[in-house]
């Protein structure tokens, strides 16, 4: 047991050193690079140049969503993607959101939009729908 503790403690040293070395290359808050994240305030400042994409399930989208948002979730990706592309234009930035900070749907949809649809200027909304609701109050 003592030997295991010594090894566990020793491994902390290079681990901490590496974390310091990589401090600018990885975010501890979110798996998405800071350059691909956007806050509600930033996205609002882009004004009409934004297409909001709702990556939540259909039921949640129907309940409420960001004004003029387009639904695009992975459950109905093939069906919804053409509808989204019909509203898209190159000068517009795309902001994808899901329920909250901890959900993954928005980053998956953003990843697929960049990869499969070859779109640039795709961002993930920090804090998602929850954050949007807070900013609305």
């Amino acid at each position, binding site marked *: *047991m003592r030997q295991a503790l010594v*090894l566990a403690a020793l*491994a902390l040293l290079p*681990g901490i050193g*590496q974390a310091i070395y*990589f401090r600018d290359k*990885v975010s501890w808050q979110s798996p998405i690079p800071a350059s691909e994240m956007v806050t509600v305030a930033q996205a609002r400042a882009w004004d009409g140049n934004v297409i909001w994409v709702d990556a939540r399930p259909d039921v949640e989208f129907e309940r409420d969503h960001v004004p003029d948002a387009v639904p695009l979730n992975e459950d109905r990706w093939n069906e919804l993607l053409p509808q989204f592309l019909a509203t898209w234009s190159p000068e517009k930035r795309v902001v994808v959101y899901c329920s909250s900070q901890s959900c993954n749907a928005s980053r998956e949809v953003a990843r697929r939009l960049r990869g499969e649809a070859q779109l640039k200027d795709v961002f993930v909304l920090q804090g998602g729908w929850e954050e949007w609701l807070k900013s609305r109050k």
Partner: protein
Amino acid sequence: MAEIAKVKFAWRIMDLVVGGVFIYAGVVKAFQPVRFASDIDNYKILPWTISVGLAFYLPWLEILCGLALILRRLYLGGLSILTALVLIFSGVTIAAKVRGLDITCGCFGHASQNWSFSGHLALDLVILAALLALYFKVTSENRLQNAV
């Protein structure tokens, strides 16, 4: 006497192979901590912050424990940690499969990217068997020495 030397040599080879496997696995991941953090995150068990912390820590723990087996320093500690790690890796892999997650284990970086679930689990079981064999061998040796 020659027979004993052969058996000792075989056990030593096993130390080197098992230790080497973990050093290799650790080094591969230590070079790509961000990717390893994503691999951990894909299991959807831990928050991202903890995944990042583990991505910086676990590769070095594997390297040090692998070295412990090869150099025969802190040997039992290294064996205990590696056995626990393999049990945890196997458990979360099975859990991910049951939950229908289609993920790469990330155990050996890019090298393990296209491994099937059964291939990954088979390797885990082989390593686990080797670790347990080494563990019981060394503990029984210690018991004998204490008895004498």
